[in-house]
């Protein structure tokens, strides 16, 4: 059994919370006491049925306003897979929340209201999914019950979305006509939509084969911690603790330490009492090298044959996440894997209007703005381009005054 992490993009009006609630309810992932609380609640649908959206609304403020204002994580599993849902709000003022949820997702569900079709927010959500590099998209055309389960309506929306997907660069797309409210095609195939012969949403989520990009990318191992017991019997023990962020390392592989550039090879890989010959993407291990080199947290071990970019000048896509406007004269921190150094956003190259996808050229970079910037770092970063390696191509900006995370960076090129 493996884990599928997915994000749901859509707004309250599209029935997003209802869709997740339906997925949990129909897959019998709700326990008796939670169900009891659900039935006890005063919130009901117009027809008197229970409001499944309550299952995903977490905090008081949200319950009061009836909107999701943060990223809520939900867990359920079937006998095929364990699922982690990042439920994020759909309105434009919560773009940063969606970017956050999307950064860890392998799949995105994009909800379209069958009555409205492809609208501004659909463009926005699709652009963000593409920007964050999510490889698989499921377009759920919801509220089919409100359009008499019309195939023509569905086909029109599919065609419109195809045009959009070319524009934003999305490739693997699955289309499913659903009604979250009535339960059509969520867990069970719909009797009302007999013209659709494909998978229900859950069946698709259970069976979709995803290429894990990080396992195919080149071998990277950011060092988090150096284990040096310095006891009598372990006097010379020196293990580099970390998690393989992409690719895989084998014993005897030639590795280079960056940014210093020293070479060595792998003597041993450890995981408590085990000594595996190979450590692949996602594994937390301890690596021993054949040579004694000065390595500390913030350094990265890479396969010598396939080295990343090393630069202090980087072009990146930036999503700004703070209420204070980006200040190009200010020094921020940049955190890239275990490495933290100072940086300056040297230049705003352009911004993208995320509703129309048009480029804009003005200097103000505000909350939820997205665009291309040029960054200068105090120390060189050993990074991969985000489009080739998400794990070694993403970074965050931290405001040195407040310590808050204020920006998400997708590193795209060496700067000039």
């Amino acid at each position, binding site marked *: 059994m493996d884990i599928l992490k997915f994000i749901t993009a859509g707004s309250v009006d599209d029935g997003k919370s209802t869709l997740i609630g339906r997925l949990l309810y129909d897959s019998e992932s709700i326990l008796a006491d939670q169900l009891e609380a659900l039935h006890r609640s005063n919130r009901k649908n117009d027809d008197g049925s229970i409001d499944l959206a309550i299952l995903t609304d977490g905090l008081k403020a949200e319950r009061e306003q009836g909107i999701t204002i943060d990223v809520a*994580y939900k867990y359920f599993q079937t006998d095929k897979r364990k699922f982690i849902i990042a439920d994020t709000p759909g309105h434009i003022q919560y773009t940063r929340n969606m*970017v956050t949820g999307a950064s860890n997702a392998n799949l995105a569900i994009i909800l379209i209201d069958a009555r409205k079709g492809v609208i501004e927010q659909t463009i926005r959500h699709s652009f963000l999914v593409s920007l964050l590099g999510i490889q698989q998209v499921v377009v759920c055309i919801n509220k089919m019950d409100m359009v008499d389960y019309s195939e023509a309506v569905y086909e029109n929306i599919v065609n419109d979305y195809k045009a959009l997907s070319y524009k934003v660069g999305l490739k693997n797309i699955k289309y499913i006509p659903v009604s979250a409210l009535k339960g059509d095609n969520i867990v069970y195939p719909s009797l009302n939509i007999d013209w659709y012969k494909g998978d229900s949403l859950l069946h698709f989520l259970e069976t979709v*084969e995803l290429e894990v990009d990080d396992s195919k990318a080149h071998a990277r191992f950011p060092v988090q911690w150096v284990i040096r017991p310095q006891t009598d019997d372990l006097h010379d023990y020196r293990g580099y603790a970390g*998690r393989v962020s992409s690719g895989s390392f084998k014993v005897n592989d030639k590795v280079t330490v960056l940014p210093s550039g020293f070479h060595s090879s792998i003597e041993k890989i450890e995981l408590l009492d085990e000594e595996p010959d190979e450590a692949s993407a996602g594994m*937390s291990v301890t690596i021993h090298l054949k040579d004694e080199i000065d390595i500390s947290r913030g350094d990265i071990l890479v396969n010598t044959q396939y080295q990343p970019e090393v630069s202090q000048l980087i072009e990146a896509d930036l999503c700004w996440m703070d209420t204070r406007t980006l200040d190009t004269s200010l020094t921020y921190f940049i955190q890239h894997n*275990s490495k933290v150094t100072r940086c300056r956003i040297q230049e705003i190259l352009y911004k993208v209007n995320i509703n129309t996808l048009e480029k804009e050229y003005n200097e103000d970079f505000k909350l939820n703005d997205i665009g291309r910037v040029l960054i200068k770092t105090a120390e060189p970063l050993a990074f991969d381009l985000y489009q080739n390696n998400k794990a070694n191509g993403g970074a965050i900006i931290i405001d040195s005054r407040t310590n808050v995370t204020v920006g998400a960076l997708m590193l795209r090129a060496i700067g000039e």
Partner: protein
Amino acid sequence: MSKHQLDYLDELEAEAIYILREVAGQFEKPALLFSGGKDSITLVRLAEKAFRPGKFPFPLVHIDTGHNFIETIEYRDAMIKRIGEKLIIGHVQDSINEGKVVEQKGKNASRNALQTVTLLDTIAKYQFDACIGGARRDEEKARAKERIFSVRDEFGQWDPKRQRPELWNIFNGKIHKGENVRVFPISNWTELDVWNYIRREKIELPSIYFAHKREVITRNGQLMGASPFLNMDDDDIIENRTVRFRTIGDMTCTAAVESYAYHIDDIIDEISASKISERGARMDDKVSEAAMEDRKKGGYF
């Protein structure tokens, strides 16, 4: 997924180890909050995987309400001996003696709420800047939005609006003096995941997790273990039942469930088919729908 995809328990384990090592790398004075429950016992196992053959870069901290199950305390002391790590105990009784908190009265009196003060005092005394805990997002709705690195202000408060975005696997642990971060390495685990991991790793647990005979009374539809800590009156009828505990907290607020699960396989079967979620057996969450959120804002775990 691809051939390289890890099994889900391996993936959860690797993520938790990664988070523990981030704590070690980013903080000056971290601590691991140890309750004696299965989640914090799992954390200890994960810490062994993260840092052995070295020592843990943090002590274990136990906030002792004084109303613990004796089995929990015995387990704790044996475990500390086995792993050879440092244990710091914060006593709720001390907070009561110092007049910082007042013991609750009445039938449902519990020291559960009081431990928040002892916890915050212990954090202040030792100047911990990061406290690792075993909370999971699947436990309760308010926890579903909890970050893995959750910043608390100098009053220990959690502000849902001030939470930092967490992108990819990058955790921002920068804080101002006086603030601290609660870190939850097993955020993404469910109750069933924890049990499956305990089985796979053959981790020993306090005996009260397994079915045993115990004197209980029924309160508000829940089975409470009879103890000197529970305020009882003539309405309370003591019965001898075969029960086990799904969570281990204070004796006054942790309910038992009727069970014949004597072995971990039985427990996993029981949970897989269970009709009540784990926190359903916690009286402290029942008070209102927003009970957990209110306690979190006040500094409760």
